[in-house]
């Protein structure tokens, strides 16, 4: 990660800006939306090792004098899915990347809740995003 940040520093013009945008290291919430109603279903169990490593890498390039921290924001972000299949595919991709342990338990829970609620529902995954602005020194 530090190598990638050094490369970013190299290709930036003097006074250039680096944006680090990624999900905040907080467990995302999964629910079902039916009309305006949101029914909570479960909380994901992400691993945050990569996030901590990224935070350390950013802190390193600031300490080394490559960048200076400018702004940091956190804001809500949601992901809507119409089908259980899409939800499963999205989870599988994150599992493949090593960011998640298997969440088959959550897929089963969502399936049960959808059956109980009945009618048309959408699966909603929500959790904050973090945006950090760094300025090239």
């Amino acid at each position, binding site marked *: 990660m530090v190598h990638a940040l050094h490369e970013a520093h*190299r290709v930036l013009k003097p006074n250039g*800006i*680096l944006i680090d945008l990624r999900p905040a290291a907080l467990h995302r919430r999964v629910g079902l939306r039916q009309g305006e109603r949101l029914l909570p279903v479960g909380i994901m169990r992400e691993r945050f090792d990569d996030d901590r490593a990224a935070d350390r890498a950013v802190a390193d390039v600031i300490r080394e004098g490559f960048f200076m921290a400018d702004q940091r*924001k956190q804001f809500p972000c949601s992901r809507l899915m119409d089908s259980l299949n899409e939800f499963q595919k999205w989870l599988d991709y994150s599992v493949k990347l090593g960011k998640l342990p298997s969440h088959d338990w959550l897929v089963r829970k969502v399936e049960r809740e959808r059956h109980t609620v009945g009618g048309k529902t959408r699966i909603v995954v929500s959790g904050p995003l973090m945006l950090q602005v760094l300025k090239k020194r």
Partner: protein
Amino acid sequence: MSLRVDPEKNEVRALKAVIDWHEKLVLEIGCGEGRLTRRLARLGAIVHANDPDAGLIAKAKRNVPRSFAKRIRFRVGQAEKLNHASKTFDIVVFSWVL
């Protein structure tokens, strides 16, 4: 496509609030299928977007509206070894990759 990320557009609002993107030359690292790339182009940026996954880059190219064709360039590449000259870009965006 029924999967939608950030339908409230909070992400683009936050990006707009921190920088003026108009005519800025931007390198986006980790563009995936180009969702954020299109949003940055819509903010007025000229975006060179890359991702190590050739399959995702192919999808991203297919998803570019004709009106953005001159504002967006996609390329397969690694963040640790960028194929760009030094001091080229106004802004570098790490898009969900760090």
